[in-house]
């Protein structure tokens, strides 16, 4: 009702039809006629987004009213105006007032407006900045992200420092979504003020380390835009990017793949050196010179592919099955530029598949195939029929298909292709028919077996009714005849006969040239043609005139008796022609052929100049030189170097240091598990990558650690194998990320949800207490595995469990437990699941029923148990289809905690609140081996899942954690006295836990 009221008051109703038209004319470009305006007015008057009916004045009034709905309505109209490209900048002051609106839709529309006009109204735009600065601190990550998006989109140079600050803050945000937005903001700031490059690179460097799949694509995009030459920033992140690739969103995949292609070309040696055998074309590829240089080297040392190079190839391969055509194309170009020659073939099928997609996609893909098919016929030859032209294809698609078919032609398939071409020549699309004739010409020159057949076919076409076809045939025949003129005087005669009927200038010129060039083979006809030309000379096109002059000159030299007068006549005509080219040519020819006293030394050589044997033209593909561009790029598509195109470098002769890609262990209190050397190095790789992952609140860590588990088992099972692990094997062992996802799907799925709410919670309480508490990375100590069910009692089913020390994925109040189920019986077990539990109130998140477990197989499942901060055992039944086994999990008290980070100051503050009854302490004696601070850290962490608090005193060690269920703070401090004695203090309101923890710690520290 409000709305219709406003309509009425603004004169939309019939009474005000006149004003409507008037107000329209103010904004509608003059090109539109009045009747049109009237009709739209009438049509849209009932439409909620009728746009131009209201005057700016009215909109201003609506925006300044205090009714939300009116404001929103007005904003919708304003956005409608923007969408139409109409100017509504004078509303800026009225609009900007609403930037802090509570109504989210209104707010977003204001954002749209701001981004559009801020550049023009810089001073007014500044009024809104404080709102965004406030929103950047909002507990809702979505609000934070959109505030950053808009703030960074306002192109007002004065706020560059504010943007910089906001970007830096957002890059460290807990929410990966906000971090992603900050990566986008980097590019915006860079385009606004390139001076900030250095600082922005720092942020990029930081974000590149981010393990979230959400951020990866965006930050690589920022990298490409801001500092594509800083390849050194990629080294440490290379393996991570390769492993994350499958899970990155599709647009990010394209960007990352293209960046990694460039990277790989600078870091690895060429896999093509011994590739000569695979090069079926046998013509010189453009890398040939390269490979010759290194031949000696190659012979001395066989090529071994860098494992990182292999990693990239392997991890991109599954993406060929993507539904996103851009992803498929980028993988195809990666294989083309990086893979050993014999592996490139795997992309063929996928590329051919893309030909089923939209017309525009076909166009780009065909262009790329055209380039590829020149170098590697074999790749696409089996799919030749997929390039057959349909009458319904668009012209540019047809031409490209023709190009590819021509490239694919060889002795074996030429007859099929020519038969196909015959159909095309008859096409109604004459431009296409002409292109087909050129293609036939190319086939004829490339494959000598069919030259005669083609030539005869083309001669037949000379009697075609369509002029373009005939003209094109003449031109192509001319080129073909040049390759073997001796045998074809018949054809030349035939063409002379046709000459009168051909009107297309290019074709006439071609025939004249042929006559002149081979005038000695057709001595009777050539002068006659010249005679005819003399008659029509003035009416001909320039190109025909030039060739007539040429013909005259050549005949004058060979047959001056018959043609002397004709030539002079033509030269006289040419002398006064309107075109200076023709006048010049005439003058030149006259001096050259007609001897007089002024003519110089050249006269003697006239014959040799004009009738020199000329090399036959080479008919080449238009895509011949496209390979100078990286496939799949805009530059390749246009065959012009586009702005911002990054050259693909040649392979380095010697590979740069590989070790730069090794990731160092950053974890400060990482404890080396007591394993063999090889295994531990393998694990250190993993752990470091894990640590980053979990810090970003991502879901990968649990799956990774599970993989670790599996691997451990594997090594145990096959101890002999262990010694043989080479670098290659190491990579071979790392399961691609997607596979992990498959195994862990239900888990990882909910994990992300939990993480969100988790961080949310933390921020909330951060707001209340102003104590910066965070869930930190779980500390990686040696994982203790406990027996849940022995295979003797379990009738073949055995179960072990351990605490992965991850935040539980199902509910934050649960402790995560991983159970490894193994079938040691000789038959497969079915329907393994969890049955009754006791106490009945026990809150367990069960794993999904395992349908079937084969003999000797094992499976790792995750579950969550809410122990309610007590060490009371969780009892439940593990059931198979036939049996039920009662089992129980009794947690060590240290497993009921989760680590939290705090500063030393916060620690003391918290400790101050937990004195008296909440403090438990004891003097303990430590084993001498445990007196170093590292050893203490290791022992404490092995007992309890707590975080280390950095300490300024050497002799005091502090650890902080929270109980999983109730989140009560647990503080552990250890003050070293003389020699082995120490004072161990635990502050927490859970006094029972405190005493148990104290006991456990005491024991652990006393042990050597």
């Amino acid at each position, binding site marked *: 009702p409000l709305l219709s009221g406003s309509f009425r008051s603004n004169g939309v109703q019939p009474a005000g039809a006149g004003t409507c038209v008037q107000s329209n004319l103010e904004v509608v470009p003059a090109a539109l006629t009045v009747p049109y305006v009237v009709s739209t007015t009438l049509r849209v008057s009932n439409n909620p987004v009728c746009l131009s009916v209201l005057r700016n004045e009215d909109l201003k009034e609506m925006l300044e009213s205090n009714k939300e709905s009116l404001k929103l309505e007005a904003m919708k109209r304003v956005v409608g105006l923007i*969408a139409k490209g109409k100017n509504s900048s004078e509303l800026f002051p009225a609009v900007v007032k609403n930037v802090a609106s509570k109504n989210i839709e209104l707010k977003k529309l204001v954002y749209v407006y701001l981004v559009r006009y801020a550049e023009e109204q810089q001073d007014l735009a500044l009024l809104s900045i404080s709102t965004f600065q406030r929103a950047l601190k909002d507990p809702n990550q979505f609000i934070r992200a959109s505030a950053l998006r808009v703030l960074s989109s306002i192109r007002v140079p004065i706020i560059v420092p504010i943007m910089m600050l906001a970007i830096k803050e957002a890059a460290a945000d807990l929410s990966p979504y906000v971090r992603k937005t900050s990566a986008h903001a980097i590019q915006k700031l860079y385009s606004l003020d390139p001076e900030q490059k250095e600082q922005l690179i720092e942020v990029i460097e930081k974000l590149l380390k981010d393990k979230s799949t*959400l951020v990866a694509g965006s930050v690589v995009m920022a990298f490409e835009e801001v500092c594509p030459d800083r390849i050194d920033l990629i080294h440490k992140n290379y393996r991570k990017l390769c492993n994350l690739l499958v899970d990155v969103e599709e647009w990010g995949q394209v960007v990352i793949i293209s960046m990694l292609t460039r990277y790989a070309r600078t870091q690895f040696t060429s896999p093509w050196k011994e590739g000569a055998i695979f090069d079926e074309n046998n013509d010189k590829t453009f890398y040939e010179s390269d490979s010759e240089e290194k031949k000696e080297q190659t012979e001395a040392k066989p090529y071994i592919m860098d494992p990182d190079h292999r990693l990239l190839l392997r991890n991109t391969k599954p993406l060929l*099955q993507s539904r996103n055509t851009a992803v498929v194309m980028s993988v195809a170009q990666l294989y083309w530029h990086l893979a050993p020659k014999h592996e490139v073939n795997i992309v063929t099928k996928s590329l051919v598949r893309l030909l089923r997609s939209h017309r525009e*996609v076909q166009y780009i893909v065909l262009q790329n195939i055209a380039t590829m098919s020149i170098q590697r016929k074999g790749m696409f030859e089996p799919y030749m029929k997929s390039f057959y032209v349909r009458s319904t294809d668009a012209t540019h698609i047809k031409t490209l298909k023709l190009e590819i078919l021509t490239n694919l032609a060889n002795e074996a398939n030429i007859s099929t292709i020519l038969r196909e071409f015959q159909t095309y020549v008859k096409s109604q699309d004459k431009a296409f028919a002409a292109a087909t004739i050129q293609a036939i010409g190319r086939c004829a020159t490339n494959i000598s077996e069919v030259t005669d057949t083609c030539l005869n076919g083309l001669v037949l076409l000379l009697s075609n009714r369509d002029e373009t076809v005939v003209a094109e045939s003449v031109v192509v025949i001319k080129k073909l005849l040049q390759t073997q003129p001796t045998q074809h005087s018949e054809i030349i005669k035939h063409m002379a006969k046709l000459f009168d009927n051909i009107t297309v200038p290019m074709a006439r010129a071609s025939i004249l040239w042929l006559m002149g060039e081979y005038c000695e083979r057709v001595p009777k006809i050539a002068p006659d043609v010249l005679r005819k030309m003399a008659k029509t000379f003035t009416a001909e096109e320039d190109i025909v005139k030039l060739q007539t002059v040429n013909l005259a000159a050549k005949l004058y030299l060979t047959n001056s008796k018959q043609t002397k007068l004709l030539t002079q006549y033509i030269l006289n005509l040419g002398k006064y022609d309107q075109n200076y080219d023709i006048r010049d040519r005439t003058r030149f020819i006259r001096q050259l052929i007609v001897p007089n006293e002024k003519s110089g030394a050249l006269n003697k050589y006239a014959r040799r100049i004009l009738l020199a044997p000329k090399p036959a033209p080479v008919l080449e593909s238009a895509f011949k030189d496209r390979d100078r561009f990286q496939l*799949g*790029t805009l530059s390749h598509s246009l065959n012009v170097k586009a702005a911002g195109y990054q050259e693909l470098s040649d392979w380095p002769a010697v590979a740069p240091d590989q070790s730069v890609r090794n990731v160092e262990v950053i974890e400060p209190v990482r404890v080396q598990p007591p394993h063999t050397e090889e295994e531990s190095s393998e694990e250190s790789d993993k752990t470091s990558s894990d640590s980053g992952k979990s810090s970003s609140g991502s879901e990968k860590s649990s799956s990774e650690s599970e993989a670790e588990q599996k691997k451990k088992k594997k090594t145990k099972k096959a101890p002999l194998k262990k010694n043989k692990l080479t670098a290659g094997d190491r990579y071979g062992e790392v399961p691609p990320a997607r596979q992990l996802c498959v195994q862990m799907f239900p888990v990882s799925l909910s994990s992300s949800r939990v993480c969100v709410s988790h961080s949310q919670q933390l921020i909330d309480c951060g707001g209340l207490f102003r104590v910066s508490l965070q869930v930190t990375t779980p500390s990686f100590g040696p994982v203790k595995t406990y027996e849940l069910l022995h295979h003797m009692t379990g009738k073949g089913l055995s179960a072990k469990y351990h605490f992965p020390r991850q935040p539980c994925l199902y509910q934050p109040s649960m402790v995560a437990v991983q159970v490894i189920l193994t079938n040691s019986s000789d038959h497969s077990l079915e329907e393994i699941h969890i049955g009754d539990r006791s106490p009945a109130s026990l809150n367990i998140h069960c794993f999904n029923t395992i349908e079937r477990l084969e003999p000797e197989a094992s499976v790792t499942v995750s579950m969550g148990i809410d122990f309610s901060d007590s060490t009371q055992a969780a009892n439940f039944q593990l059931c198979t289809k036939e049996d039920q086994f009662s089992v129980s999990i009794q947690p060590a008290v240290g497993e009921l905690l989760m680590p939290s980070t705090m500063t030393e100051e916060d620690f003391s503050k918290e400790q101050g609140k937990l004195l008296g009854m909440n403090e438990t302490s004891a003097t303990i004696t430590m084993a001498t081996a445990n007196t170093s601070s590292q050893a203490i850290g290791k022992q404490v962490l092995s007992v309890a899942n707590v975080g280390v608090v950095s300490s300024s005193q050497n002799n005091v060690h502090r650890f902080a954690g929270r109980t999983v269920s109730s989140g009560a703070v647990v503080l552990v401090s250890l003050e070293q006295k003389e020699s082995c004695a120490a004072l161990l203090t635990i502050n927490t309101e859970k006094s029972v836990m405190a005493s148990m923890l104290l006991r456990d710690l005491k024991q652990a520290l006393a042990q050597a």
Partner: protein
Amino acid sequence: MIHSLFLINHTGDIFLEKHWKSVIGRSVCDYFFEAREKAVEPENVPPVLQTPHHYLISIYRGKLFFLSVIQTEVPPLFVIEFLHRVADTIQDYFGECSEGVIKDNVVTVYELLEEMLDNGFPLATESNVLKEMIRPPTILRSVVNTLTGASNVGDTLPTGQLSNVPWRRVGVKYTNNEAYFDVIEEIDAILDKSGTTVFAEIQGVIEACVRLTGMPDLTLSFMNPRLLDDVSFHPCVRFKRWESERVLSFIPPDGNFTLMNYHVSSQNLVAIPVYVKQSISFFETGPCGRLDITIGPKQTMGKTVEGLMVTIHMPKAVLSANLTATQGTYTYDLATKVLVWDIGKLNPQKLPNLKGSLTTQAGTPKPEDNPSLNIDLKIQQLAISGLKVSRLDMYGEKYKPFKGVKYLTKAGKFQVRT
């Protein structure tokens, strides 16, 4: 990456523009209009154009041009794919992608474009993520919104954005849990004059409509997966399971989606369901020609061929057609020179025939070549490649869903040369 987007209708009016970076004047489109003019047909406009300062990448869909302006190097397919995704989204939201619909919902479209790209880089393109941020308009909702002042724009980050199953939202609930799969195969073929197959292949697609509560984890297996030569999947399908077991394992998006596309290798013989006997000829003397077409069943696997239709693009010189059809109706469009013969169901006892004379323009030479025939047909309950779904299993949820699989064979680009 993508700097600006212009939507242009078939008459060449720019009716929507959106800039993700600073504003670029409309005059940049003039280069496009020039190319459009040159191309005659809108389909023939080159998708990638170069102008002095910008690059233009466009797609043509639903009689509209989506024209994007690019300033620096970018994979052209990236842009093309994205533009099609925009068109898909509009279609998904409003049921069709046309000028009228976009104009009527210009604010929603604008909000969508705002969310889909940030600084020219795709931000959210998954339909269900977008739908959580900007709800598609329904009549009921717009009534409620006007009354309560609620808005169509969500204020929290869609759950999909952060999870690694961005295609599915959480908290889906249905009273009837159903999962339907349509296996649709298209025969692409070129037959020559004599009826022999020049080229034939089968392209298949599995369209799914899944309305299941919670987070179901589905596994779809085939009786004969070896048939499938080349496949591409919705991102939800786990590629490794496919590699190792040849089953489709996935957590489905909510609602309608394309699960997979596949290609049946051309090495296998492709069954061609119909044969065509045709003769189209133009006489040297007099402005006329004859046309005689008969269609009969060939390899139909015992099923009925339906929806049979023949489309012929006649040479420009053909003025009119005077034909009689034993079955169905025919129309000849004088402007586009397209002859359409709508036959319907194919009756093997009484083969449909179209016969009669064609009038060509007097004075013009007889058309050089004969037009090719494009054939459309449908066969229900048959996948011509022989592909069969063997079972669908669900994990992760307790209820029993209702499941269904439907097969359909269609003619794709099925062309008979004459």
